[in-house]
């Protein structure tokens, strides 16, 4: 089975490990992620002002591409891309006037009808592949490690695009249980990592990382699992800065859920891109 896949900028650079692990895992499950032709930047953050239409053109154009290439759904890995594309899609379908205007902004593209479904890989794994089927393919026992699932913001909020309950999500836990790993009840799994403030307000991100990673460790986690390249960066790379400020701080690996899936399903570790992880998840790599 083929599914159109929208990568977004970071999946092609810092988060190549997210992409390659996802590709490997999906291949193993019998699915091919087909990269969308001529995709463009989603805009990263969804524009929230009532009079700002132009920033919705970019995400919609990506959905037009899906149509042009004969698809009716597109999957993303990056939570930010997911959120931006999906919010733009929801908006497009709610406002006829805006819809016509956006279409008139398109040049050579066909008119968009609002009929492409924007999915995140987690929901594809649940609804298309099925957690049961994934569980059947598990070859490596991982019951010795405890995982802190971390959702971040953009898969759960706002409610119009949420893939799960904003306060008590469970989709990642369900996936992890299907893989045979134990999860901790992690209250900070839906707390913001500080996101792009990592550029201009590092202090904020350091505070967030200190708290989020600290609590995960307190609660006994061996590794944090994320679904967003920016969360991953903030929670992992910024640990170095945290350590500078709080010397007693102990580091914790932060990986993508697809990497953990890869390990469980028996993808050779070297194909899961762990070289891009700054803090190596030794517990997984030494299996």
């Amino acid at each position, binding site marked *: 089975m083929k599914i159109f896949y929208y990568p977004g900028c970071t999946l092609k650079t810092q988060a190549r490990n997210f992409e390659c692990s996802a590709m490997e895992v999906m291949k193993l499950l019998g699915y091919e992620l087909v990269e969308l032709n001529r995709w463009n930047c989603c805009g990263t953050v969804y*524009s*929230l002002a009532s009079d700002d239409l132009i920033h919705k053109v970019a995400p919609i154009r990506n959905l037009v591409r899906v149509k042009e290439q004969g698809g009716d759904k597109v999957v993303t890995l990056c939570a930010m891309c997911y959120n931006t594309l999906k919010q733009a899609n929801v908006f497009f379908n709610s406002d006829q006037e805006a819809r016509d205007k956006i279409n008139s902004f398109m040049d050579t593209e066909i008119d968009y009808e609002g009929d492409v479904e924007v999915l995140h890989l987690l929901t594809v794994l649940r609804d298309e592949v099925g957690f049961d089927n994934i569980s059947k393919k598990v070859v490596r026992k991982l019951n010795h490690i405890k995982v802190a699932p971390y959702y971040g913001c953009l898969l759960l909020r706002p409610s119009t695009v949420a893939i799960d309950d904003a306060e008590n999500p469970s989709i990642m836990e369900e996936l992890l249980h299907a893989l045979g790993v134990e999860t901790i009840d992690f209250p900070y799994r839906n707390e913001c990592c500080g996101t792009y403030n990592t550029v201009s307000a590092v202090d904020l991100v350091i505070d967030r990382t200190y708290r989020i990673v600290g609590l995960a460790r307190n609660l006994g986690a061996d590794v944090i699992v994320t679904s967003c390249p920016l969360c991953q960066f903030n929670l992992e790379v910024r640990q170095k800065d945290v350590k500078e400020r709080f010397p007693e701080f102990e580091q914790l690996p932060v990986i993508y859920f697809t990497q953990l899936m890869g390990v469980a399903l028996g993808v050779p570790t070297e194909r899961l891109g762990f070289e891009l992880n700054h803090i190596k998840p030794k517990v997984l790599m030494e299996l």
Partner: protein
Amino acid sequence: MINKVIELSEQNLYACYQCGKCSAGCPSVKLMDIMPNQVIRYLQIGKPDKVLQCKTIWICASCYTCSVRCPRGIDLTRVMEAIRLIQLRKNIDYIKVREISEDVLVSVPQIALVAEFRKHTA
């Protein structure tokens, strides 16, 4: 000013009864100079300068935590965006792109940079 914010954000700021739940749950509140509920308060009582000059609107990372919990259904994320835009549309940048160190530029992910520019520069 409040009307402009209401127009841009499509949120009824008069509905806010200042319970503070937005501020209580805000992950970024520690770095803010005024609290999210106070942003609305200052607009309600007609002190827009407090809001336009605050750091809070720039620290807000659009995580939507306040929005999903607000008992009065105010999407504060959009309110913050509206106020940012009022500033940015005067061509006032919050950050100077030139001043971002090479170090940062090469280390942070692309999405962080694009998002930062989108949110903090005109």
